[in-house]
């Protein structure tokens, strides 16, 4: 395989609180190629979200970022805000945590999806736009896209809202999708649906994926490579073998804890006269 | 409490405000013995003088020294406002504490009355009371008290309820009065903080109200010096000597700004106490 330019190359990224200088992420980095899936795992508070948000310039304003983040060769952090804003939606799409609060509570879902589409493709006709939104929703297994479009965010469940967020991927067709804890707020069944959708997304659209999660099962299903973060630093990186044959002590601890939990879960719900 | 006071005093701006207010009060209290002109001394031939010479800020339409009238005005405007605030907060606090402490029927009835009083906009009630009772400084103070006590009552009642609610819950689990007392000492300052913030900020609005009423002629009567009334007199001679409008307005503005700023500082001082060690 020849050396392709990575889609997103993050080098020596450090994030700290601007006023106090306290370090949140230290010298993180990764390389993501087209169509690849990168899994970022670690406990809550390890800095996974902050690192990724900072890499694309969407970190909270109280934080200051140093380092390089090259998108197709261009440094995102050195760009103007306008330059970066041109990339969001069109090329880089962020799927946030907490689907229940991911949409403007006062406006119907359909309007918000249409609005997104129009910001990215301003010249699209209104009939065509509605058709595309309905198509995208239908692809996410919504039986009645029109009803979803008419709904307010408060009328839909967490799982439905998560699928609406994923519908924006099919709608906007970016090159990179960053998914921040896509299954954490959902029950196990909805979570599985979401993972399946990500797999379909990769097959049908060829998007590159950054999957931030503390759920190792998700990573196992999707990631081509992964990095393990702890207290703001990347402590291990590699292919899926990192989970089956962890080198670093902390990774071993993560994997073992998760295995223990999974076994307990199976015991509770599987073979033994399961609880309802 | 000591920590809060220390934090407050550490803030330079807050210190500045407190110094300014203290200075004003000192000037006002000492006015009779200060070497300044008689605020009521009329000298028609010397009217409308610009600042300079014997008159630091010039003279008004009757030749009276403006600086001296400003200083004497402190006694009326500022002292009346402070008196109104103290009485209002004392009455309100007592009422609210009783209601919160008694609970049950008594509490409900007392708060009903407070609710009724709170449905009147303060300015309307103050106007009406002054209107019925007649103009005058004491009547203005009474009007302010009647219009505003209910807010303090409600706040104090909420505080007392909060403390006693927590207290009752803990009482069941706690042995001896020692721990409950500690609890009170932790809860009370934070709650008291809201009270102090309200008192400080409200003082500013009382100063504005009293000077507004005097401006309209419903407060003190001439020749007593009062900032609002000085502005009303200045209005009459606006065409001849517009400068007369300047200083009384500045006096009111700076005094109210001081109290407002202080109120914000007090709020910050109390807030930080609850925000945790490193402001997480």
């Amino acid at each position, binding site marked *: 395989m020849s050396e392709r330019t990575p889609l997103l190359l993050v080098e020596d990224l450090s994030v700290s609180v601007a006023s106090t200088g306290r370090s949140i992420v230290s010298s993180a980095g990764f390389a993501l190629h087209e169509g690849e899936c990168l899994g970022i795992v670690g406990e809550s508070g390890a800095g996974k979200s902050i690192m990724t948000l900072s890499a694309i310039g969407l970190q909270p304003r109280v934080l200051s970022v140093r380092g390089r983040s090259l998108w197709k060769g261009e440094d995102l952090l050195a760009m103007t805000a306008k330059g970066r804003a041109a990339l*969001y939606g069109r090329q880089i799409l962020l799927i946030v945590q907490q689907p229940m609060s991911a949409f403007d509570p006062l406006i119907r879902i359909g309007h918000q999806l249409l609005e997104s589409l129009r910001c990215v493709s301003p010249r699209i006709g209104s009939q065509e736009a509605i058709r595309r939104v309905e198509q995208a929703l239908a692809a996410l297994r919504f039986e009645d896209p029109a009803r979803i479009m008419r709904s307010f965010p408060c009328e839909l469940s967490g799982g439905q809202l998560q699928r609406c967020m994923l519908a924006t991927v099919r709608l906007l067709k970016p090159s990179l999708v960053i998914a921040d804890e896509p299954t954490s707020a959902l029950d196990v069944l909805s979570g599985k649906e979401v993972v399946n959708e990500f797999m379909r997304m990769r097959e049908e659209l060829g998007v590159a994926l950054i999957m931030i999660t503390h759920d190792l099962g998700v990573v196992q299903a999707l990631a081509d490579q992964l990095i393990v973060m702890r207290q703001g630093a990347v402590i291990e990186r590699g292919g899926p073998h990192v989970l089956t044959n962890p080198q670093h002590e902390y990774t071993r601890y993560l994997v073992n804890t998760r295995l223990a939990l999974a076994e307990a879960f199976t015991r509770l719900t599987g073979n033994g006269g399961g609880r309802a | 409490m000591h920590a809060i006071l220390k934090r407050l005093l550490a803030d330079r701006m807050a210190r500045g405000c407190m110094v300014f207010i203290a200075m004003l009060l000192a000037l006002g209290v000492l006015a009779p013995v200060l070497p300044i002109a008689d605020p009521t001394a009329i000298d028609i031939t010397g009217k409308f003088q610009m600042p300079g010479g014997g008159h630091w800020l010039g003279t008004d339409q009757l030749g009276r020294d403006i600086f001296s009238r400003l200083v004497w005005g402190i006694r009326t405007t500022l002292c009346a406002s402070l008196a109104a605030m103290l009485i209002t907060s004392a009455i309100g606090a007592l009422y609210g504490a009783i209601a919160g402490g008694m609970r049950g029927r008594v509490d409900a009835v007392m708060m009903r009355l407070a609710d009724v009083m709170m449905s009147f906009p303060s300015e309307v009630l103050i106007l009406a009371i002054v209107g019925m009772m007649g103009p005058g400084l004491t009547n203005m103070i009474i009007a302010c008290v009647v219009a505003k006590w209910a807010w303090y009552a409600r706040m104090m009642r909420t505080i007392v309820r909060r403390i006693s609610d927590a207290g009752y819950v803990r009482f069941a689990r706690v042995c001896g009065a020692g721990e409950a007392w500690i609890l009170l000492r932790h809860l009370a300052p934070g709650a008291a903080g809201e009270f102090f913030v309200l008192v400080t900020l409200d003082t500013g609005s009382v100063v504005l109200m009293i000077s507004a009423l005097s401006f309209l002629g419903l407060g003190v009567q001439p020749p007593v010096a009062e900032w609002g009334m000085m502005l009303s007199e200045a209005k009459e001679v606006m065409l001849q000597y517009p400068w007369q409008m300047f200083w009384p307005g500045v006096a009111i503005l700076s005094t*109210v700004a001081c109290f407002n700023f202080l109120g914000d500082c007090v709020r910050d001082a109390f807030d930080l106490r609850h925000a945790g060690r490193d402001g997480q």
Partner: protein
Amino acid sequence: MARMILRRLLLLVPILFGISIVSFVLIALSPSDPAEVAIRVNAMVPTPELIAQTRHELGLDEPMLTRYVHWLGGVMSGDLGRSYVNGRAVAAEIAEAFPATVYLALVTLALILVISLASAVICARYENRLPDKFVRLMIFLTSALPGFWAGLLLMWLFAVELDWLPTSGMRGPESVILPAVTLSLAYVSTYARIVRAEMIRTSHENWVLFARGRGLTDARLTVHVLLNSLRGAATALGMSIPKLIAGAFVVESIFAWPGIGRLCITAIFNRDFPIIQAYVLIMAVLFVLFNLASDVFVAWLDPRERGG
């Protein structure tokens, strides 16, 4: 939601009763005999016979409770008594003066909204930089500004020196400018602060991050944030109308604006008690009703509360 409205309306009844009692009892505060006042106001000599006769005419010789019931009955049917000065129905005097104040209040509210929104947008965009600090300083100063002083200065500058605007009265559209600007200065700080706080709070919400992350333009994002902030500030903004109406009396006095504030002030100087009583009653009832209306409106605005 209908149940919520019904419940609030029921709770309103004892409050309204209380308001009527307080408004009525206010007259007892007067150190002088209302009958005597009524006589003097009409430039007549208050002889004992005349006083007794006036007392009987005005119904003042009956016990307080009877008088209250009479008065309340009158109020319910729209009769707010008669002015001591010119004998006209108080209700008519108030009805004449009310629209002027409402007009002033609405123009002022529009001004306040524009200034508050503009300053909130500036503060949010340039957070902690120079424009933000300047706007915050201005807001702080206006909160301490005596409204009547600002009115005087504006009047002197624009009406006297420059002669661009009229000094008083309600003739033509330009005569509302100075009163509205003066009145807005007194209240803009309150609302600008609220809107600004709401905007800052809203701009940190999760959906704003997602909106940005899926490519919404800055302009559209600002609109979204503004709408949500207004929703958050709507309760306060709703109550601003009665507050403006109540607080307009100083401005109306300075600029001789023929509204109810000026009516009340004149009544105070004339010791025309029935007008003062009616003013208090109407303002309090207005406040309470507006409170309910704005709570209902705010609940209706938010789809989260509509369904529940």
